[in-house]
């Protein structure tokens, strides 16, 4: 008797909130896409999918690629949605080992170059790729008549002392990709390389935003002082695209020989409520309409060959022919050790 009233009120409160939540999930044929916070797609493209298939898309976002995948793993028993987009090759084995994806062969799968089809079990479908590369501030080097370095090895030269800023691999996926680049390039000697980089005054910051907007001298409006930064092959075209008015030449350039390739995958979530909608959405992600949209929405490169690239990409982006790579298995196995060894050598 004493407690009945509060319980009643709580019950009313909870029912009310439960009702309002179920209200938003109702509606005919909605497929739910779970993804990281950087996912983007232009509205007309999404509408085209709905028109063509009758499926509406509900997009759920959270955190970065690592956090989003971990949330999917944590909710395996009761999936958050039907499709997940945004697992990259550095996290691929975790997704596969945890078995969060159902197998699915997308309609265009065979047309995707073999180098991107990293999952032989056909659960993770490659959608796009991008390269993590050292970027250079052209004007800074031109002003000092210093040649822009070309290789990872050159970065340890004394003429490039105190010029490079990198991201912490423990907190930044960009930073992790660059550590992987050094492993791919120097193999067992990668830590020696980092010792030399450290001796040469490399600066480490927490994340890409800090490195690029804060420390890099080549970013628009930046007060940064370092002319070399670990960023993306797509950063130079982005500098042009997001300038008003757009300049004739890119203020920065990506160094081809320093690039490490990241491939991004999508998968049908095991236990999805709408597996057919999920499959339709992944098929759509490999269609020309969606693939063409990728460069300027997420600043990545489509995996489907012969997808026309926007002019700003054709003119200013590098797509290195022979980027540094590591197998997802190798990354999955060693990621943790790399990070702790790197932390010991570079930060302590």
């Amino acid at each position, binding site marked *: 008797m004493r407690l009945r009233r509060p319980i009643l009120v709580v019950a009313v409160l909870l029912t009310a909130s439960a009702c309002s939540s179920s209200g938003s999930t109702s509606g005919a044929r909605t497929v739910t896409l779970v993804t990281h*916070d950087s996912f983007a797609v232009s509205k007309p493209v999404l509408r085209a999918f709905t028109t063509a298939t009758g499926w509406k898309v509900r997009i759920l976002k959270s955190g970065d690629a690592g956090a989003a995948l971990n949330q999917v793993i944590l909710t395996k028993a009761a999936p958050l949605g039907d499709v997940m987009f945004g697992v990259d090759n550095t996290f691929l084995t975790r997704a596969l080992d945890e078995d969060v994806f159902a197998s699915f062969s997308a309609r265009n799968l065979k047309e995707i170059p073999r180098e991107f089809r990293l999952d032989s079990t056909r659960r993770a479908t490659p959608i796009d790729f991008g390269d993590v590369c050292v970027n250079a501030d052209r004007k800074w080097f031109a002003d000092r008549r210093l040649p822009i370095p070309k290789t990872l090895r050159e970065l340890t030269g004394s003429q490039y002392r105190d010029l490079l800023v990198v991201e912490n691999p423990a907190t930044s996926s960009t930073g992790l990709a660059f550590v992987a680049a050094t492993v791919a390039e120097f193999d067992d000697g990668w830590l020696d390389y980092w010792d030399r980089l450290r001796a040469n005054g490399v600066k480490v910051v927490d994340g890409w935003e800090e490195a690029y907007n804060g420390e890099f001298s080549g970013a628009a409006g930046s007060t940064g002082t370092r002319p070399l930064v670990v960023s993306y092959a797509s950063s130079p075209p982005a500098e042009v695209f997001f300038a008003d008015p757009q300049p004739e030449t890119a203020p920065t350039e990506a160094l081809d020989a320093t690039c490490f390739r990241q491939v991004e995958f999508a998968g049908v979530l095991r236990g999805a409520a709408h597996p057919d909608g999920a499959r339709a959405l992944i098929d759509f992600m490999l269609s020309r309409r969606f693939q063409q949209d990728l460069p300027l929405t997420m600043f990545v490169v489509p995996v489907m060959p012969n997808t026309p690239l926007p002019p700003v990409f054709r003119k200013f982006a590098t797509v290195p022919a022979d980027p540094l790579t590591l197998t997802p298995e190798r990354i999955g196995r060693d990621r943790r050790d790399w990070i702790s060894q790197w932390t010991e050598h570079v930060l302590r």
Partner: protein
Amino acid sequence: MTARVPIWWGRALLLGVPLAFVTVFFIWPVGAILGRGFVVRGGVDLSPVGEVLTNAALRRVVGFTIWQAALSTVATLAVALPATAVLSRYRFRGRALLVAVLTMPFVLPTVVVATAFRALGVHGSIGAIVIAHTFFNVAVVVRIVGAAWRGLDSREEDAARVLGAGPVRTFVSVTLPALRPALAAAASIVFLFCFTSFGVILVLGGPRFATLETEIYRQTAQLLDLRTAAALSVVQLGAVVIALGVAGVMTGRNRGSHRLPTPGKIPARIGSRARVAAALAPAILLVATPLLSLVRSSLAHGGYGYSHLGTTPFGAAGSPADALATSLRIAAVATILAVGLGLALATAVTRPGRRNRVVRLAQSVVVLPLGVSAVTVGFGFLIVFDAPPLNLRTSWWIIPIAHALVALPFVVRGTVPILRAIDPRQREAAAILGARPWQVWREIDLRLIGRATAVAAGFAFAISLGEFGATLFIVRPETTTAPVAIFRFLSRPGATNVDQAMALSVILMGITGVVALIGERSANTRSASTARAG
């Protein structure tokens, strides 16, 4: 006429609803995620906690976390208290505006503040961490302690002075003891904020600094090592409980010498102008310098960011204006939730009569969300709200609910000292004159805490507007709040992105300032009319 509602019914309700809210939306999800870490094959295995405590590196992390939080709290109090004294005791032109300016940092995302601090050369050191924490938290002290300070009966101080005590002696033996509850409340909140601060440590401290919060983030979000994360969370919770215990002891049982607001008693005397300025200078310098530098950088490229507020950048989900609208909607709901629940709880715990353990515990429990990692709560939501009747994990409501959890302790801690100070005889008199319990509450309590409530509401609103960590880690439908939008703009290269991010930050700041200003103004008029009536 209906029968009288027994008092204990009302009390149970006032206590029960807020506690149920905290239990369902905080204790349950956090407990569930900790359970994932500790429950192994049906048995509870607490050995990870021991492993954390015996691991030298992690012990260093624990030590550093406590140390930087303590240092930051002391620095914040040192900078904020002189300003609080002046702002709550003197009336002068621009007073409300100053309070508003000091509140602005509260909503700014760390990424944005970091740019300003870096331009000023403040980054990459423990000093930078402490300065940034002070910058963010001055408002907490000004608001919570200020509300109590205004309520001090200046006649006691006058009496001490007449009896020959100097200004220092008067402050130490009369003012300070009376302020103790509010000071403890503010200090414990500042401590918790610094204790669990994430962005400041990573962005302004740099990668060499690690705290429990950054480690929990790494273990949960990056490594999915729930075992270690759970152990770290338990250590974090333990430290938080100890900190709250200390604050509780400091609060003591001091309730006597508190009077209700008598604003405007002391007009600024000409001779004291210099002193007023000197007391305000550190806080204003610390807060205004980075803010002005932000405003300046937001004006780059002919104010591109401002002229393109309605422009949705290619590929983005919405324009800066859309994000602002979303944030305002969420903040409104979060404020209503936090103020409603907070006032209920504050009333319940301050009602005279039985003061049992539940009542005392309730006050501490609502503060706990400040001491637990946003990642832990966000991941906890995922695993508990996955089935009806609470299938909330992908609902819009989860964001204002999370924000209300963060704002709740401010409402409770801001209003409890005032409610405690109400002379019970006032209520008794009203009751004897025939008022029902709720009438007593409306006519006595509510009128007297009008100011504190307005201030708390403004603060809750600001907290929601600026909340970033939890928002980012909660799975949510395409609802981009302003801080998340700012973060997104800054995560792409290019001038227009930076411009839009900066302009949006300044507007967010401006809105917070205006809300704080309105809160101050309405609070003044309300308590002034109360004073007249009384």
